[in-house]
């Protein structure tokens, strides 16, 4: 029952924050992906950095259970699937999580996204054996690996670097990248930027 309560609290917080950062608004996703307004990209980079620093820092202090990490396998299909997801993400302005939040907040087009998504997931369930036998789901680069081995975790490291210290520094790198990224990369500003 505790886990269900945590699902409700963390899930609701995630949905609310996605709404407030603009991630469930297709216009903001589109403006990020056509490189005209990168504020959302800056938020995402900062979030990855903050999450990373807190998780690895917490692990090093013994406050965060390393066993809660869950690393997905690397295989050729990850890149291929990423390409497909990226194309559909750009076209629709939704990804699975933001589509669900958008539909709940009243966006009608998101209902069509979910319907298409359910059909797409079902299509994969049916075609899965073909992918499996193609070898594109076979592990590459060690499969479930992190960039460096994290002490106490069940995953190997791609490099010999200490995974927790590397994670902490990469986290800080993501934070720095979030600040360094300009607000737009494509064309001239549409309006004057307010001074910081």
């Amino acid at each position, binding site marked *: 029952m505790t886990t269900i309560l945590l699902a409700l609290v963390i899930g609701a917080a995630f949905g609310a924050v996605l709404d407030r950062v*603009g991630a469930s608004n297709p216009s903001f996703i589109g403006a990020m992906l056509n490189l005209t307004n990168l504020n959302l990209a800056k938020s995402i980079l900062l979030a990855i950095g903050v999450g990373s620093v807190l998780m690895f820092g917490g692990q090093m202090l013994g406050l965060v259970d390393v066993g809660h990490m869950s690393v997905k396998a690397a295989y050729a299909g990850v890149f291929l699937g990423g390409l497909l997801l990226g194309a559909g993400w750009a076209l629709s302005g939704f990804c699975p999580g933001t589509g669900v939040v958008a539909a709940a907040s009243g966006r009608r087009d998101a209902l069509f996204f979910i319907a298409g998504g359910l059909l797409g*997931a079902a299509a994969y369930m049916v075609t899965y054996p073909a992918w499996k036998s193609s070898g594109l789901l076979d592990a590459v680069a060690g499969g479930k690996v992190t960039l460096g081995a994290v002490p106490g975790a069940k995953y190997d490291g791609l490099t010999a670097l200490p995974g927790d210290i590397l994670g902490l520094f990469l986290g800080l790198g993501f934070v720095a990248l979030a600040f360094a990224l300009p607000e737009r990369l494509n064309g001239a500003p549409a309006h004057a930027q307010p001074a910081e």
Partner: protein
Amino acid sequence: MQLNWKVGGLLLGLVFFAAVWLVKPIGVSTQFVILDGIVAEAVNPGLVTQTADSFTSTNTYLAKSGGKYAKAVSNPLNYSFVFVIAMMLGGLLSALARGGIPTADRQVPTLWRANFGDGKIKRYAAAFVGGFIVLYGARLAGGCTSGHMMSGMMQTAVSGYIFAAGAFAAAVPVSLILFKKEA
């Protein structure tokens, strides 16, 4: 309407951290499979069956990894499924608290309207086709923007970087081609 990127990014990071601290990393796209399974099981009972120590299915995908998807289909009141329902509640309350989304934008978002006009059918068709490609791709990749990109890169997972490279390699060119006008 959009939070300042620093505040928004900090809050988003805190949520991703809270999830891995208290339970496990956030992921969403698997739940589309679970809902498909629940619907299919209702229409065609016997898709998912209980074994001596777990669950299995006549569908190879639901039966993989020791039947963990089959188990979730048979018991929807599990952490990951409830998490997605809660996301919807949180998103709805947040949107209502800031006054809701304008009716016109609910049907055809402003950026789409600036580039393709205000026809609803065209927008809904694009969202449907996009949804199909997104979820087919997410299942092929084994995760989506939440699970692979954000949770993955946060944990320094090699797969997260591979996924993000693929996603942006397609998303940016497609968006540059489709959305030439700004909202």
